[in-house]
């Protein structure tokens, strides 16, 4: 550890370095997070999008802090080390939708630019395996709900597939994973987004989940503001909105329940998942609606 401390001091010119935990250090220039990378092309991509996605002084990412040599990363033993700001205060969601949407829009805009990455992650379509036999023995109202959801889930999936094939020539954005709203931190009212060191994700799947949760926590009005703000960014056009809609239409949340059903989980487990899913279902419904409306509004603007 001391070895690393000295190395960090040397690389970054800190006068003082102290480990708070495995990943966070306290320096004379504040708390910093340490990340390590083994895949240099992935690292390059993460440096790139973080550097590009900012709008001063509203949105910023946890960009790689440069070494004294002005390098984004430094080689430590067999891996690359990067250093990032670590801010404690969580950025608020309600009444701050503009910044959130801007961040997402910036990421989408950057995600649509040319890039060279060998490996990207793309969420596979879930299976909605269904066997009505397994409904037997469940409480009637649960059966009832499951059947209804199953029916409409198929409608959603089909609809998604249709738009997907219609939009297959439209480029999908390559995005860093949206994991949690806690990734957004606040300093001087700037939203500082903490990226990940995950594989780059192709498409809107993680943003979908993120905004579905957003709706559940903050409501439809707030979600509408986020989408409006995304809509103001350069690259988010109706084609992108349709790609996004495809992801939201695809009933990923339903797959959770069918999995639970197919693996013969207990009634209680199934019911729990059903309840959780139904919230997400409604949120997805709102999100699709808002995105659809956004597209409709674009048409009005044109004419």
């Amino acid at each position, binding site marked *: 550890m001391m070895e690393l401390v000295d190395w960090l001091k040397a690389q970054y010119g800190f006068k003082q370095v102290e480990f708070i935990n495995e990943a966070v250090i306290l320096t004379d220039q504040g708390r910093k997070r340490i990340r390590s990378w083994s895949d240099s092309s992935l690292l390059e991509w993460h440096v790139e999008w973080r550097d590009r996605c900012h709008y001063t002084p509203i949105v910023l990412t946890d960009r790689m802090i440069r070494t004294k040599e002005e390098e984004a990363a430094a080689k430590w033993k067999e891996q690359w080390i990067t250093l990032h700001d670590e801010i404690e205060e969580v950025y608020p969601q309600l009444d701050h939708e503009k910044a959130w949407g801007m961040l997402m829009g910036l990421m989408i805009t950057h995600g649509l630019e040319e890039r060279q990455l060998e490996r990207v992650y793309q969420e596979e379509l879930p299976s909605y395996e269904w066997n009505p036999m397994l409904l037997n023995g469940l409480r009637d109202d649960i059966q009832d709900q499951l059947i209804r959801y199953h*029916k409409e889930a198929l409608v959603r999936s089909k609809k998604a597939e249709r738009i997907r094939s219609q939009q297959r020539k439209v480029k999908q954005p390559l995005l860093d994973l949206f994991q949690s709203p806690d990734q957004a931190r606040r300093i001087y009212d700037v939203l500082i987004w903490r990226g990940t060191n995950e594989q780059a994700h192709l498409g809107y799947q993680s943003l979908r989940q993120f905004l579905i949760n957003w709706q559940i926590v903050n409501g439809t009005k707030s979600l509408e503001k986020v989408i409006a703000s995304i809509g103001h960014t350069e690259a988010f056009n109706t084609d992108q909105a349709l790609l996004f809609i495809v992801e939201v239409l695809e009933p990923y949340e339903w797959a959770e329940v069918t999995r639970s059903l197919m693996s013969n989980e207990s009634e209680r487990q199934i019911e729990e998942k059903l309840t959780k899913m139904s919230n997400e279902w*409604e949120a997805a419904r709102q999100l699709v*609606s808002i995105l*659809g409306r956004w597209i*409709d509004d674009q048409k009005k603007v044109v004419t």
Partner: protein
Amino acid sequence: MTQEHPTKLSFSIEESVWLNKGQEVQEIVGMSLEPDISIEEKDHHVYIKGGLRLIGEYQPAKSEAEVDLEKGSVEDQVSFRSVGDVSLSEDGTGKITHFFPIDVTIPISRIHNLDDVYVQIESFDYDLPEKSCIQLTADISISGMNHPQDQSANRPVATEKKADEKEESVEPSFSFDAKRATSHEELVSPPPLHGGSEEFQPPPSNSWQAPVFNQYYGYQQPLPEETAEEPEQVEEEEEEVDEVEERVEATQEVLDEPSEEVEIIEEILEEPRLESETPIEQQEQEDEEEVRETTVVVEAVEEEKSVAPLTKMVARPSEPIARAVEEEEVEEVEGDYEPVLEVGKPREENALYLTKMLTKGEERFSKWRMCIIQPNETIDTIAHRYNVSTSQLARMNQLTEEKVEEGQILYIPVSAKS
């Protein structure tokens, strides 16, 4: 030869029902046509009024439709439902209802007993030329009429207009004048009243119940890719019958010959048009020749019960139906089928109500029979019965081999005056 034979007034409906935007059909789940008709006697006429109620259940095409940015609201096109809105029973299907008004006036002279008057839907088929349109073909018959046989003169086609009928047709309805339904009758003026009103017992109520004709198809209807422009005001169509022109072609009734066929066409200047064909059948004739003359029946031999078997229609691919119809039309043109039903005036075509059939001019007069294969029947027996060749039947029906199965529907080309 003054004996009266019960006859039947038959006509067919061809109608396109246009659906509203967002109601486009992916697949018909089921469709029924139920008569809702009252029969009533008044001033020496029997009025058959009411209509046919079409109730259809379908899988909406919305879920499959391409999202068309140019047309309609994207929000509506991409939206999906809350689980509360998903009905278990409906199976997510859409429902359409459509009412076809019927207004038929028959001179009381032709009716022996009002209790014997039945309105039956003898056959019923539909096609989906496009997602937003359901095209129906139904053959309706009114039975219980007398068939005076003492008239012998071959009558030329006559045209008659009746002022009172026009007045009666103020309300939106199709109007048929069935008074001239036989070839043997004096056509120049209304026939004398037969039987008198004292014989006549009006039904106690309007509660006549026609057997419900249900047709359930379990197949998928392939759809054209493009979305149709939807004409509006389908639901509230105003049908005005401006003029009823009646043409009767009368022939001497000779056995072993095609029996008389009375065709009534009305010229409806205001669309929609309804085509009606009203051949009169001789009920007493049970030989095959007679059967052949039945313009639209499922199985003439079982004519009286013809309503029943149709409910047993089993699933079969729809595409052959559509093609069979087309082939049929061609066949009839080739077959020198006489266009008995000459149209007196150029038709005014109102695009909103224009059916596919109408656009094809004379072909719309095509007739065909449907025959449900009964146990032990083979394609050969059917061919023999209808006096067509086996290979013709196979070709008409798009059969890959010359084999039929019980319950299968065969379309029988009607050859002209064979």
